[in-house]
């Protein structure tokens, strides 16, 4: 493991998760450990149903692990909260609230004063290019726009860790490409610490500083691959990046690992 000298921002230590009673239920995750350093972008890939989403739910504190512990800055993480912000695959926007109300939600829960709420809202609307949708309801927006709102709702909290659970899985290919580039840019400019779950190998190679490949169920960590960080090809569009020899090599290596697991199922 890298950077063992510094305390990781987020650490999942020996996580095992059973659904239903232990030994007779379903074991979704089996003794997984991973550490995300400050400012690092970690992608977890694996076949569907391998428990990678469970890993994230546990990491966010939304589910209790059967065994193991979650540490933030080396201390037990406790209940879920805005320091570990989550972006869900299905957006999870509050249907009865406008874009602005959705984005302000977390700030209001944390008692941020109205003036500051407004300032951060306006800033975030600008970053996510949502200015003209401020007063729209989620049901009036396309899927891509809804996910932009959800990302804005997380980022506005200035989270220490951003957990993203297949955030682009429900979007069409074109929208997905645009948002991948957007997230790449956000990470580069703001150095967010990100744990990103995906089933797309390309997405993982394009976005991740490190890619963690999970085995089929029960999910174990099969391999960890470090990717070149902050290289020029990652700064460009994903189609351009996908033509770079390093990208192709990494994609091939990771896909071979994932493929093994899918075939063995």
């Amino acid at each position: 493991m890298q950077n063992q000298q510094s305390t990781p921002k987020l650490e999942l230590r020996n996580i095992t998760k059973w659904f239903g009673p232990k030994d007779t239920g379903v074991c979704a995750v089996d003794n997984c450990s991973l550490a995300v350093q400050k400012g690092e972008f970690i992608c977890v890939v694996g076949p569907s149903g391998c428990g990678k989403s469970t890993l994230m739910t546990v990491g966010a504190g939304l589910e209790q692990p059967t065994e193991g512990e979650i540490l933030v800055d080396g201390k037990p993480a406790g209940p879920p909260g805005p320091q570990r912000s989550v972006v869900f695959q299905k957006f999870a926007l509050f249907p009865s609230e406008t874009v602005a109300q959705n984005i302000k939600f977390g700030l209001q829960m944390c008692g941020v004063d109205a003036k500051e709420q407004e300032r951060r809202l306006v800033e975030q609307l600008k970053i996510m290019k949502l200015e003209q949708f401020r007063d729209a309801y989620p049901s009036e927006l396309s899927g891509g726009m809804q996910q932009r709102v959800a990302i804005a709702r997380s980022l506005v909290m200035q989270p220490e860790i951003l957990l993203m659970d297949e955030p682009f899985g429900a979007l069409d290919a074109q929208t997905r490409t645009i948002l991948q580039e957007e997230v790449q840019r956000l990470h580069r400019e703001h150095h967010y610490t990100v744990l990103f779950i995906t089933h797309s190998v390309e997405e993982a190679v394009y976005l991740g500083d490190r890619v963690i490949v999970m085995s089929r169920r029960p999910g174990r960590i099969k391999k960890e691959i470090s990717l070149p960080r902050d290289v020029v090809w990652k700064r460009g569009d994903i189609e351009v990046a996908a033509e770079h020899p390093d990208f192709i090599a990494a994609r091939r290596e990771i896909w071979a690992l994932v493929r093994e697991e899918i075939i063995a199922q």
Partner: protein
Amino acid sequence: MTSNKVAFVGAGATLLWVAIWAWLTREGGPVSELFFPSPGDVLDRLIMFWSRPYIGSTLMGHILSSLSIVLAGWVLGGIVGVPLGIAMAWWTRLKWIVFPIFQLIRPVPPLAWIPLTLLWIGIGDAARIFVVFIAALVPWVMNSMHAVYSVDKLLIDAGRTLGANDRKILTRIVIRSAIPTLLAGARIALGNAWTTLVAAELLAATAGLGYVALNASRMLDTDVLVVAMLLIGLLGVMLSALMGLAARMFAPWVKNDRNGG
């Protein structure tokens, strides 16, 4: 079909039905006026009834009597039913305490409460309010409970990761997201309340449209009987339309649900 077209077809169809009615009940037509009055007779009686009292009260008086009792029973049902339904969904233990009694009451038609109500409270307004309350309570509770159940668990997770405590999750996420279903429940409750009231007035009342209909039937006055039935129908439609309007007002985010994504 556009809404203009729908309105046009609807108006045309209504006129056609009235024309068929007029033709069937014309003088010397196949239906005798004693059996069923013609539209003209009904209109005459409606106008007469408007200014001259019938069995103790003018038309407006009877309408207001019916409406006020329905609203009282319906509102009381909501005051009890909505918090109860939400609480039953939120605290499973409460649900299992209340549910057995509730399941037992549910299949009993509200009108079957009338004999007991007569013994308890007599035949005054309070008795009818009580029967209407029972009729409205069941849909209020059931829909409130299901409204909470139908809130996506993911929204609760999202709320927790944004720092909401249990109270905020209940008030700001669960109840607000449940509003459309709550309003649907309110509409069903109002429909139930209305039909039950009219039936209750047939059995035990001193005013109201059901009371008018019953008296008219005893007097073989089919004109007034049909006037009363027509008004019962029209007011039912109006109440339902008002609830539709309320739904658009209180849940404005629902209207564009279909073109999401």
